Every structure is written in structure tokens, then in C-alpha cells.
């Protein structure tokens, strides 16, 4: 599958599960989008756990951006901020096009707190990290599982339920919005695998 087809499929399948998909060309563009989404959603707290380790160069930019837009930025110790987080900003580790799935290595507890307890989850996923289907991802996934402890999350859309009269309702426990920002340019740093 060519890259353009893969991205197209990713977009199509993610949108099929109500994920909002956009293409971005840089980390700065992604961060700007995340802050705007926060403000548009009436939020004023953004958590970006793990960003410092993965994309140290982006942190000063985000700090400045949040400061200028009046958004509180949280980077760690998120247990102390449960209930406050509006937006979780994460860098996805992989994605699976066939099911529109974001794969997030979530051993880090702050990362879990942010992606589970926020109202909106904004994830960036570099194009090079998209795999066509789950079985194609299996060898890489196996390597992750073989190095415990690990908490690996497949996320396909926003939290949902149909437990009352089978009416689909979004946002029962987790975020009620998932944004997937497909990063067309590979950043210099490799995501850990």
C-alpha cells in the first residue's frame, strides 16, 4: 500500500469512528491546533505528559503558546489534577489504518491519566508510524510486550456506550472527542519502540 493510500485509509477509517482527522506539517502546527481545540471547547488546561522526553525542542514553543493563549500547561504528576484536564496532548506511537486505531504506549501513568480523564484527546501520529492492519503491526507489538511492564493502548475513537436502549452516546467515561493529527513530516527524534 502506497503512503498516500495508507494515509487516506487511516483518515477514512478513523473518521468512521468519529475521530476528527487533520493533516499537519510540523509539531508546532500540531501544538497550535491542540491549543485552539482546547479554547474552542471552552477549556483552559492542557496536559502534555511525556512531551519533554520525546520532543524536548517543542516544549518551549508550547510553553510560550499556552502562556500567550491563557491555557494552563501540565506536564507531570497528573494524579493531583484529576478533573481539571480539558485536553490531553500526546504523540502516538503507531496507528493501524484498517480500523482507524491510535496505538499509545502508556506505561507512563501520567500519559494514562491524561488520555483517560480529559474531555478531549489530541494525538499526533507521524505518517511513517501508520501500519496497514493489526497483523502487520504484530512483530513490533510483540517486541513491546516482551519488555514489561507495559500498558499498550489501542484507541479507536472517543469513549462510547449504547447501554441505554442501544442509543449510541459518546463520552461515557473517557474523552468525548478524539483528534488525530497526521504528521506528514517525520520529526528528527524517533519514538521509542
Amino acid at each position, binding site marked *: 500500500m502506497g503512503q498516500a493510500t495508507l494515509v487516506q485509509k487511516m483518515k477514512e*477509517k478513523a473518521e468512521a469512528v468519529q475521530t476528527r482527522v487533520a493533516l499537519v506539517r510540523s509539531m508546532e502546527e500540531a501544538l497550535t491546533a491542540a491549543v485552539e481545540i482546547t479554547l474552542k471547547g471552552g477549556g483552559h488546561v492542557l496536559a502534555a505528559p511525556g512531551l519533554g522526553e520525546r520532543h524536548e525542542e517543542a516544549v518551549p514553543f508550547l510553553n510560550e503558546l499556552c502562556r500567550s493563549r491563557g491555557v494552563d500547561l501540565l506536564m507531570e504528576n497528573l494524579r493531583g489534577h484529576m478533573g481539571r484536564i480539558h485536553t490531553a496532548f500526546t504523540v502516538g506511537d503507531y496507528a493501524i489504518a484498517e480500523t*482507524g486505531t491510535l496505538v499509545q504506549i502508556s506505561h507512563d*501513568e501520567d500519559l494514562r491519566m491524561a488520555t483517560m480523564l480529559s474531555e478531549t484527546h489530541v494525538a499526533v501520529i507521524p505518517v511513517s508510524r501508520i501500519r496497514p492492519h493489526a497483523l502487520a503491526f504484530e512483530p513490533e507489538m510483540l517486541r513491546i510486550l516482551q519488555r514489561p511492564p507495559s*500498558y*499498550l493502548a489501542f484507541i*479507536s475513537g472517543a*469513549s462510547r456506550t449504547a447501554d441505554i436502549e442501544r442509543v449510541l452516546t459518546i463520552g461515557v467515561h473517557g474523552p468525548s472527542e478524539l483528534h488525530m493529527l497526521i504528521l506528514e513530516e517525520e520529526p528528527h527524534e524517533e519514538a521509542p519502540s
Partner: protein
Amino acid sequence: MISTPPDLKSYKTQLRRALQNEFLATTLRTFASAYRLSRANAFEGLDATHLVEEIARGKDAAIPYLQELFEQFRSRAEAAGVKVHVARTPREANEIIASIARSNDVRKIVKSKSMTAEETFLNDHLEKEGFQVTETDLGEWIIQLRGEGPSHMVMPAIHLSRKEVAELFTGVTGEVQDPDDIAGMVQVARKELRQAYVEAHMGISGANFAVAETGTLGLITNEGNARLVTTLPPVHVAMLGFEKLVPDLRSALRILQMLPRNATGQAISTYVTWITGANQCATGPDGRKAMHVVFLDNGRLTLARDPVFAEALRCIRCGACANVCPIYKLVGGHNYGHVYMGAIGLILTYFYHGRENARAMVKNCLNCQACKSVCASGIDLPRLIREVHRKILKEEGTKPVKNVILNLVLRNRRLFHFLLRRASLAQSPVASGERVMRHLPFFFDREHEFRSLPLLAGTPLRDRWNQVNPSLENPRLRVALFGGCLVDFVYPEQALALVKLFAAHDVQLEYPMEQTCCGLPAEMMGEKETARQVALQNLHSLDMSRFDHILTLCASCGSHLKESYPRLLEGEGDAEPMVRGMVEKVTDFSSFMINVLQVSPRQFQEGGAKTAYHSPCHLCRGLNVTGEPRELLTLAGLEYTPSRDEDVCCGFGGSFSVDFPMLSAEILREKLDHTEDTGADVLVTDCPGCVLQLRGGLDKRNSSIRVKHMVEIIAEQKKW
């Protein structure tokens, strides 16, 4: 605690009550239709049959080695800081979990959905021990608040209306809830349960997989509650049955491809979580989670060695067998299961919750094969249900009178046919000059009056065969007719139509006189030995060397001959090769006309009646024949008009309609409504059992729709 009627009488009372619940009927009917559609969409572009075969093969390869897989899982998980426990009984499992809670000074517990925990009634135990347990899956929380068990494995509260939920939540919040604001009620749950997560000291989850090669647990949810349950509290206990062990990640991913598609028609559930080892947890000991995995045996390891029932352990708990079951659709899971519901529930209840709870409901199966056709792991559910029924009869020693009579009569063909002839004479007082009984015999109560019953034929087919069947000089083919009891003794005219038609096509038809009942009724009543004996007798009556084909007008007989005889006669020495030869030659009428005789439109009249079709269960699923009957109708000049749910059972199910007339009547009513909606003048089907049911039902409606066996309408349409 849930209670399930231990005897047929109280079970039937419960079923009658369930049928009065209009909300349940409407909601399950809508769900059944929606499910079929969304499942089909979800599998688009995927080879579902191949996937089912792969999963079945994988499960069958793993089941004999569950103990070894467990050891491998344990060593990997323990190396990663997890404590692994084994519970032999439900009580042991509950006690292990309570003691983990006690030793961690836990008071409040949050729980994500687990059928295994339902199996052990874990919540009841923990609450008795003084712990406060909160279910966090919305459906589970609702039924917990109501003190009920789930009525579906995937949608536990599907039996409840928005109004009932609103009343319940009004009680919980002290604020009046609007039943039509479902999103608002979901927000109530979000708010209330957030607090529970934060306060809980322990989280209990189930698991969909335990991957032996890595010691990983896989959890699938849509709501995301399992993520919170396994993250926020410092202690995590996962509880699962041994059958959730898979050897490797690849096997788990294969099941993941199937499970959401088959369960809810989703390509994937929103959250799939893979946990390996004790992860970071700020409030846990040494900054890590205290993590425990409890494997429940409760008979599974014995079941794994059972030559017949090990197959039940393939189940991945998708709930599809309930979704397509015509009986589940009418009465829901609280009336069609104990803890586990639907077809797999009828089987597992016996093994996990005992004979008492399985005894009555195991009889409640139409053998329509709908469950088998959608099972994610290819379990032959209807067969296992019959096997459980048989096991219970055997263990209890005392057989119902009808089983005793059946065994006595069916094993002796002459006696059986003698009695049928006598019965034909005896019925004259209830007959009214027509072909149906206007008054049912005394042993039927009013509940059976939903359909009229046909009279037995004055002269059975076998007694007039030699006069009616012409001997052809140089036939192109020789075909044996396997009549089956209904064609022989009730509807000989169907065979007469065939005789006429075949003579015109130069096909020599013969009726081997030693043939008897195919034995399916015996198997359905749990009488396998009788079924085996009549199978042998039929096999010997059909001299395979003389016939090119064996044709049956009864889809049930055909599918029983083809599918069950090889199994019933396994290890019978000479019979085995004979069965193989027979199976190849068995065919249904439509397939024979299309594929063997290759009939063409010019042989038929044009401008035939507007025709609806009912696809018999044992034709479309038993024999996998779906295209030919429809092709034949069109080709023979009939105006075939598709109707809704054409391949859903008509509710006959042989003795089922006698045992459960209230259910049979409802299933039939829906079938006939769909037929009438088409505006057809004729309803065609390929099975005399369906003819009996459909014709009897339409007669009671005083409908002008004529019911015909395929062979009759084709003979009518032929240019002579």
C-alpha cells in the same frame, strides 16, 4: 442472586410472562434486524468463514494444552511482578479476591465488566464480606443498582427501557431525570462513577485474552472503564477463565479481528488494552501497581478433555448466538439462560451452574442453526445443546413418557408405520371432510390452537407407491426418494408431484420400502441411541450402488442424513464407507433441478403467481443451499418477491412446537406478517415441516395465501 426454573412447568410460566413484555419484544426485534445488517457491513471485504475456521483451529490446538499455557503465562507474568492465582471453584475465586482486598486494606472496589465474575457471583460475596463494589460499565452499573444479572453478554441492560433507567437514576441522584435525555443520563453515570474510581482502592477486571508467550492480558471495552479500573486504584485484580489463554499475540489479534465485528458490528471496539506486568502507579507500593491475576477453573480443565464438549471452550463471549436466536429475540436473556445466556448459555449453564439450572431451558431450542451460522469460533451449538439434554436425561434416569414411547416405536419400523396407519383411521371423528383437523385431540391444550394441524393421509405414500410410480425404459438417472415421515404419511401429494415431474425428465424414481423416520426427532429429544439405530436401518435400506442420487423433499431429513449420520455412525465398521457414499449423493429438490437436470425457462409457463419464499433452516444453513431455490422460482416463471427475514425459522422445530407452543406461535406470527407484507399469492418452501407450520398458521388467519412445497409449484408451472 438470580433464579432459574428447575422444571418445565414453571419455566413455561416464566416464558408466558416474558411474552407479555411489549418493550422487550420491540427492542429485541429491532436489535435482531439491526445486528444482521451491521454484522454484514463489518465483515465486508473480509473472509468471515476463513476467519472462523482459523479461530476454531487455533482454539482446538490450544484447548488440550491449557495447563501448559497457564504455566507459561504464569512464569512470564510473575517475572514482570504479577501474582498469579488458580481458583478451582467459584467460591475459591471469590475468597482469593476477598483476601487480596483484605490484605491491601481495601474498602471500596471498582469493577469493569466480567462474565467470569458474574459466573462466580463475585459481587455478592464481596458485599457480604463488607466491601463496597461499584460496577463501572454503564449497563452493568444499571443492573447492579437494580439487583439483576445481565440479560446479554455484551449489552447487559438491553432488557431495560430509558424510562426504567430514568427512574433508577432519579433515585440515585435525587434529581428527576428525563427519560428522553439519554446523553444526560450517560453524564449522570460519568459523574457518579468518576467519584467511585477516585475513591476506590482496588480495581477488578475480567480479560478477553491471556497471551501465554508474553504474560499479557488483553481487555476490550467501548466505554474506557476498564482503563480507569486498571489505572486509578493501586491494586488490580483480573479474573478470567482458563479458556481465555491463547498461545501467542498473533492468536489474540486474530480473535480481536472477529470479536467486535461479531459482537456489535464494529470493526474494533474503542479501547483495546494490553497489560503486561505490574505497571507504574503513583499510589501503589514502590510506585507500582499491586497486580493479581486469578484463573478460574470451575470445571474448565475437565471440560477441555471431554471429547464432545471441549468445543464449548472455544467460545469468545461475543454474544452473537443470542443476537440471531429467534427464541432469545422473544424472551431475552433472563428467560433464556442462567448467568450465561443464548445458545452457549444453554450449554455452559449445565457445566458451570449445574443440572438444576439447565434442565428446563435446554429443551428450548429450535435447532434452527442460526447460532451455529454466526458463531465466531464455529461451535456446533445446536448439537451441543442436544448433547447436554441427553446427558441430563441420562443422569436423571427417569425419562419422560414421550421419550420411552419414542424409543419403543421408532426402533421398530413396522410397529411405527402400523401405528401411523391406525392413527389415520382413528382421526376421522375430529376431521371435518377437509385436510385439516378442526378440533385438536384432547391432549393438546388451547395454546396449540395457533395453527391448524393436517390430517394424516388416507393412504400413505408407501402404500400406493407401486401403483403411482411408472417404470421407465431407459432412464437417464436413477434416484432414490427419501420420503421422511411427513411426506410419507401426511403430504404424499408432494412426492406424487415429484413422480410426475421426474417421469417427464426421464428420471427413474424409487422408494426403498425399508426406510423409516430419519431419526432427527429422536436426536432432538436426546435419544441418541435410537437415532443411531434408525440411521443404520435407513443406511441399509438405501442400496447406494443402485442410485445416482438420493433426493429428499424434507430439508430436515436431508440435513440430518448429511450432517449427523457420519457422526452417529462413526466407528460402525462397514457403515462408515457406506455413509460417506450416501452423504455425497444426498440432494434437495431445488439443487437437483438446477444443477443436475439444468432445467430452463422454456420448460415452464410464464406469468406465474406472485410468490414469497420461506427458506427452511435445514436447507439454507443445514445444507447451505440458498441460491438454487430462488433461481428455480424465477426460472419457472413465478414472480418471486423477497420478504423480510426469509431465512429466519418459521417456529416449527419438530417437537419444539409441541413443547413450546407459545414461542412457536409468536415466531410463526412474525413470519406470516412478513409474508403478508409482500402481497404474495403463494408462499413456497422446501420442507414439509415448514409447510405444516406455515399452512396451519395461514389457515387460522383465514388467509388466501396458498402454501406450496417447491416441488408442487414447479410441477404446476411446468408445460406438460
